[in-house]
């Protein structure tokens, strides 16, 4: 199978869905770029070149650059979704949600319920998240927990290029509003990605690795870090299951609970801050529903309750590492059976 980068995978998903369905449009700041400028058009394709090439193929009518007005254009995507288009809007960094959250959580998310089931709002909001880019406090957050909290939204967080393509295609075809999280430090990472379009269903976690001793539940970029930790632990004789949640909403409770029950020992890995987070969500689920089979306390490996620091020296300490995951796994593994 051909190897493609995460960036290519996202681009291909967009291109193929735009080819398939003329109502799919893309909008955002500089998603093409060069609007009104004297030089190259399609000059950017977003700040990291993810949407480059779409505008030349589909034209400015379907690849719309926007002013820096997130409320207006994210809201426009929502309004267009309620009236016949399937827009994919780019919220450049999820950190910017604070200037447009209303259109997402009070409008898009609630239309269907508030209007008694009569609205359909198939909008996708692609957004970058995560630390590791030395991008500091306002360009490095995760924040997917906030969207996961909101009924009416779906939240997809792909862990590699293959997942990105399949989950994005599903997101575009899905009739509900979907927040689609892309980790900015993963765009160059490659995986085998089929050329043809495929959709990965929402709410089905992926068993990245199966083991007997400890279950590691992770999401997004942390899936890879968790796998690294698991590889390392293999050498120490600790065999780990690694669960990639894929979507936090809907959540595949069954897979989480089954794998937790199988090993009786669970480590949850989440790049976000630790309070009211996906990590606590999973830990709470397990504490409630897999209590009987738990052999050790659940351990959460997360970023600390602090903004993301700029200095590389601090940021490297900040992000959950394979080391810290391995340590947590060893700890729950060593916990005496009860």
């Amino acid at each position: 199978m051909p190897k493609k980068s995460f960036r290519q995978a996202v681009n291909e998903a967009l291109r193929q869905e735009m080819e398939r369905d003329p109502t799919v449009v893309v909008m955002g700041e500089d998603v093409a770029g060069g609007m009104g400028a004297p030089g190259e058009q399609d000059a950017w394709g977003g700040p990291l070149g993810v949407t480059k090439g779409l505008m030349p193929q589909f034209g400015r009518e379907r690849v719309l650059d926007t002013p820096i007005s997130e409320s207006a254009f994210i809201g426009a995507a929502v309004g267009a979704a309620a009236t016949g288009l399937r827009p994919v809007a780019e919220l450049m960094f999820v950190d910017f949600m604070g200037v447009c959250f209303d259109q997402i959580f009070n409008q898009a998310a609630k239309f269907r319920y508030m209007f008694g089931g009569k609205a359909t709002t198939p909008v996708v909001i692609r957004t970058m998240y995560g630390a590791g880019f030395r991008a500091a406090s306002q360009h490095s957050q995760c924040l997917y927990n906030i969207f996961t909290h909101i009924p009416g939204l779906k939240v997809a967080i792909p862990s590699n290029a293959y997942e990105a393509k399949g989950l994005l295609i599903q997101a575009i075809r899905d009739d509900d509003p979907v927040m689609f999280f892309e980790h900015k430090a993963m765009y160059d990472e490659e995986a085998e990605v089929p050329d043809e379009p495929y959709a990965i269903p929402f709410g089905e976690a992926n068993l990245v690795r199966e083991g007997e001793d400890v279950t590691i539940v992770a999401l997004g970029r942390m899936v890879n870090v968790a796998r690294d930790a698991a590889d390392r632990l293999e050498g120490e004789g600790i065999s780990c299951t690694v669960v990639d949640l894929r979507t936090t909403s809907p959540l595949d409770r069954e897979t989480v609970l089954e794998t937790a029950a199988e090993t009786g020992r669970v480590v949850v890995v989440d790049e976000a801050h630790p309070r009211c987070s996906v990590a606590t969500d999973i830990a709470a689920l397990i504490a409630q529903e897999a209590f009987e089979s738990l052999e050790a306390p659940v351990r959460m490996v997360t970023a600390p309750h602090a903004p993301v620091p700029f200095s590389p020296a601090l940021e490297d300490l900040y992000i959950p590492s394979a080391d810290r995951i391995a340590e947590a796994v060893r700890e729950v593994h060593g916990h005496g059976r009860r």
Partner: protein
Amino acid sequence: MQLSREDLLEAYRRMRLIREFEDAVHEEFAAGNIPGFVHLYAGEEASAVGMCMHLDDRDRIASTHRGHGHCIAKGCDPRAMMLEIFGKREGLCAGKGGSMHIADLEKGMMGANGIVGGGPPLICGAALAAKTLGTGGVAVAFVGDGGSNQGTTLESYNLAKVWNLPAIFVIEDNGYAESTASSWSVGGSQTGRAAGFGMPGVEVDGFDFFAVWEAAREAVERAREGGGPSLLHVRLGRYYGHFEGDACTYRAPDEVERLKAEKDPLMLFRRRVGEAGLLEPTDLDAIDREAREQIARAVSDAKAAGYPTEADLLTDVYASY
């Protein structure tokens, strides 16, 4: 384009329906039969109807917390609306929305909105969809004077302009946002702001149906012809409080009485069509009677209708689960 006899009757009918609807909701609220936050549109009828007379089902409107008038003007069923406001299962939104969230997407009514400034971005989207799909539709955001200061509204002016959207912003300036006067809260002027964003903007006497109708005609034509967005600053007045329960002490003592005596859009309409000999008082009286009966039936139906049940609580959160 001219108003036919049928148009005039229809316009009056919609305005009267709104008035009857709001008066009935006012009474039922006072009697304790309607819960929640309810904001009434009585007195402002000429704005909604003057605009919506130009619109059909391919056109979209977004409304505000004060949405009943826009709904009726855009063709929503008053009975289903009344059931909704009473929280009943057969309500227009199955009882889940209530007064602040009435919508009927099939009629192009994209929703009242509990968020001040929530509508204008949505309308940019509806206008974009109309443009992209080539439906010839236009999209209209109704916004209060208070809502005109919300960043979401101001951004939308610019987006509509640079995308050259078939969008219209109707600033319904009833003089107050809650208890705060628009003469204080709005720096500059609405039409000056429109000009600042490169859109045509006109001030309109919102008590006069014909003035609104005429200004709306121009804006809708411009939008349909690809001429881009525009803004109407409609000056009008509300008869009831900000919400039901508001004591309105911030208003001048005789303010509402004078509004009703001198500026009632329904009265002014009757006078105008009478003076011009366009309609007979008997035509209008018949409409008044029918509207009163229709709304009375809606209220009694709403009272009789059943509530949603536990089975409804968790449905319709998603389109697919």
